Each structure stands twice: as C-alpha cells, then as structure tokens.
C-alpha cells in the first residue's frame, strides 16, 4: 500500500502534468467560450448558447494516459517498483484527480445555473442532458467519461510497451475491421432506423453505466498486458 502511494507521489513530482495542464486547458477553454458568447450577444443573438468546451480537458486525459505510461513506466522500473504497484498507483492517482475535477464540474454547473448562464444565458458546465440528473449521476457521468478516455490512452500505451508498434498496429487494424463489420451488418440489414431509436433512448445514467463497464474492461486488459511488459 505504502509503495502504491509512493508511485502517486512520483507521478506528482511534476505537478503540471496531472494538475496544472488540465486546469489550464479548462480555464482557457472556458474564458475563450465566454469571449465568444459576448461577441455573439453583441451581434444580436438572443437564444441560449451552448459550448462543448468543457470536454477539452477530457481529451487531454487521453494523452495523459499514454504519457503516464510511456514516460514514467520505464523510470518506475528503475525505481524498483513492480508493475502491479506502478499500475495501481497511477490509476488510483488519476481516479482521484478525475473525481476532483468531476465535482468541480458539478459545482461550476450549479454556479452556471444560479447566474443564469454567466449572465449571457450560456451552457458550458451544466449541459441540459446531463444537468437534468441528480448530483451523483452528474458527477459519475463526468468521472466515468474522464476515466474512460484515460484508460483508453493507458491501454494503447500498454499495448505499445508490450508489443511495440506491431501490437498497436494489429490492435487498431482489428478494431477498424470490427467497426466496419458492424456498420456493414447494420447497413445490409437495414437496421439504421432501429439504431437511431436505440441511440436516442440513451440517458446520462445509462451512458455512465456503459462507460464504467468499458473502463473496467480496459483497466483489466491494461493490467494483464502490463504484467509482462518490459521497459
């Protein structure tokens, strides 16, 4: 347990990577959005305005998942850390950071609603489809989404660590083939309307559940792959 926390401390030695950059990305994305809204209002638009800018830091987590592994894993081996300890420490640290950021999203959403969209009737944090749910679902939704992106990056990086370029190539090609196959089956079977209905029925809650499931599968696959990886 002690060494797991040590891994988290090692990942935090450069605080920019895990904390500084996501906050900076979020702050910039938010301020730029506010500026755009101000310009739009000036131009005379009257409807409420939306922004997907809140997802900006989430995409950074994809890169962070890759970085946390490719850059720090070989070093952690030199620090005599087992793969299991490295894995647990890194994933645990990320989960905590992502949870903190999710709570922050939720709180900012409350502020946003209370200030009637930052005074310009805008939606940045409290997007209707998510914000209509209770606090737990909202926080879980953001948390799962961030974790899923992080695990996606982490998993592809473990593939690289274990089987290098060949592994990543094989995996992406197989994934592309499976996706194409799915599209083909849907198209030839004239299932697109049904798929549309199915997609429309998704709620934030069910997306959270599905995302959590996927994240757990990726987490398990990452661990099994990492266990035999070499620096």
């Amino acid at each position, binding site marked *: 347990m002690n*060494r797991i926390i040590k891994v988290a401390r090692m990942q935090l030695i450069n605080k920019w990577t895990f904390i500084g950059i996501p906050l900076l990305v979020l702050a910039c994305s938010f301020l730029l959005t506010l500026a755009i809204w101000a310009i739009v209002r000036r131009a005379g638009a009257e409807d409420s305005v939306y922004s997907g800018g809140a997802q900006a830091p989430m995409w950074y987590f994809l890169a962070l998942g890759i970085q946390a592994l490719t850059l720090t894993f070989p070093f952690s081996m030199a*620090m005599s*850390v087992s793969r299991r300890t490295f894995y647990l420490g890194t994933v645990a640290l990320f989960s905590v950071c992502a949870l903190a950021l999710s709570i922050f999203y939720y709180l900012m959403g409350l502020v946003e609603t209370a200030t009637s969209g930052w005074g310009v009737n805008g939606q940045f944090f409290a997007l209707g489809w998510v914000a209509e749910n209770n606090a737990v679902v909202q926080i879980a939704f953001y948390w799962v989404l961030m974790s899923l992106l992080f695990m996606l990056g982490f998993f592809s990086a473990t593939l690289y660590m274990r089987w290098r370029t060949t592994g990543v190539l094989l995996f992406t090609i197989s994934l592309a083939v499976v996706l194409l196959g799915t599209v083909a089956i849907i198209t030839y079977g004239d299932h697109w309307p049904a798929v549309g209905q199915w997609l429309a029925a998704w709620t934030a809650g069910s997306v959270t559940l599905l995302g959590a499931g996927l994240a757990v599968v990726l987490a398990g696959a990452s661990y099994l792959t990492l266990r035999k990886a070499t620096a």
Partner: protein
Amino acid sequence: MSEAPAILTRALSKTYKDVRALDNVNLELPANRIYGLLGRNGAGKTTLMSILTGQNFATEGEAEIFGHTPFEHDPTLSRICFIRESQKYPDDFKASQAFKAAAIFFENWNEELAQDLVRAFNLPVKRRIKKLSRGQLSAVGVIIGMASRAEITFFDEPYLGLDAVARQIFYDRLIEDFAQFPRTIVLSSHLIDEVSNLLEHVIVIDQGRIVINAEAEELQGAAFTVTGNAQKVAQFTAGCKVLHRDALGSLASLTVQGRLSDQQRREAAELGLDLSPVSLQQLVVRSTLNAAADQNGTMEQEARK
C-alpha cells in the same frame, strides 16, 4: 538476516526469437562484495541484470535475489537498484526531480551523498534530463545508483560519455562509500583494466555463456606470456594450455594459462625467455576469443558428422 545468497541463478536462459541471449547461466554470489560483470557489447550483460531485477523474464531457469524471485515482488525489488545504460526518464524531468523520485523509493537514500556527487560531476540539476549530454546522463544514473545505497546495486556501463576525471571520481567514491556501507555491487563493464582494481570477483560472459567465474585475486597471475626463441618457448610451454600465440620470424610469444612456479621462473631465465604477467583485460579478451574459437570448432566438427 537470511542466509540466501544475494544473487542466485539456476540454468538461466533467455532466447529472443533466434538469438540465445543467455545460455545456461549458473551463479551463486554472496552478499556484500563487488562483482565485475565483464564481456563484449551484446554478450548478455544487460539481459542478465534485467532478469535479476525483475524487469525482464527468463525463457528457462530461475533467478533469485536473497532467495526470492524478484519478478513483481515488491519487498525484494525494494532492495535492488538498477539504472540501465539506456535508462529512460519522464520527458519533463530534471535531474533534481529524478533524485527526488529516487529519494521516495530507496529507503537508504542519502541526500548528502547525492548532492556531493552532483558537485563532483558538475551536473546541472535544473536542466531537463533529455537535454543533458551522454556523460551527464550517465552521471544521473551513477548518482542514483550510489546514493540509493540499495542492498544490491547494479551499474550498467556507468562510465559511458564520462571523461577520465569523472570516471576516476566514480571509482574512488564507489570504493569509499562501499567501505563505509558494504553492500552487493555488480559493475558491468567492457573497460576491464580500468575497473579491475575495484573488483573482488569477476564474471565474464560471452555470447550468453559464463566463460570465467572466479576471484579477482585468482585471476591475477592466472596466465602469463612467454617471449623468446620460438623453439625454446615451445619447449618451455609444452603441455600447457595456450591462450594465444604470436610469432615473428624465429621469435614467438605465447600466452599460457597457469601459475608460474619458482622453478619455472629459473628455467625460463636459463633459457633466456621473457616472462610477463597478463592483465585482466588481456585474459578476458583471450578467453572470450578462445571460447568463440572452441564453439566454431565444435560447430565445424558437428557439421562434418
């Protein structure tokens, strides 16, 4: 503490596709000594150390550190420090941050020693590691290895890019610190003469096989060179194991395995032959070349069958 040897391997082999990187390696190394792991580039030194530190896996056989398999075993791993020759550091790390991380993980980390070495090596600790020169990069690894004071420390060609002064600093400090804090040190090197004074025990590896596994003292004087009239040299060395043969006209120079007795020395003097000791480096070079020749010989014999 445990009676188990610091390092133990049984029939350890590692195969990469068609390359036999380690071939039936058997070692039993007691704790608190300085070992030299010598051999050519690609002989298997780094592979052996990677397996001993749980960073890589054996194809066959076993490796134990203090009686435990190191793979994924944190209590054992925490007693080891192994910085690779080509060690990767996080992209944005400065040397000072790498030391900070090492201080977190290595219980015996000595910050004073680390700072002392930083000054001795003139290392810019505020510069990003990826911008350091080869020598400075080696210095980072040397400092982590020394200041960690781990029970078993592996140095993997630690001198690459270091100038002669820096190398001497490393050797001097290593001996100094070892005297104060005895521990098991494995020094992999192909600059054999430079490190030969440090070593208590020498392991020479060639093409994945252990060619020499002996006390450094035993190896000093384990071979000698006889120079003089070819006929007399042949007479003098009859029945000895010849490691190397040089001839120029009627002159011959033979490197022979074995110890000289006083009687032999007198005999050589009477015959007018020159005797000279063989350095550890010469011995290693000759032994590995001979091992290669033997292997080729066997292969040819097998081919003829």
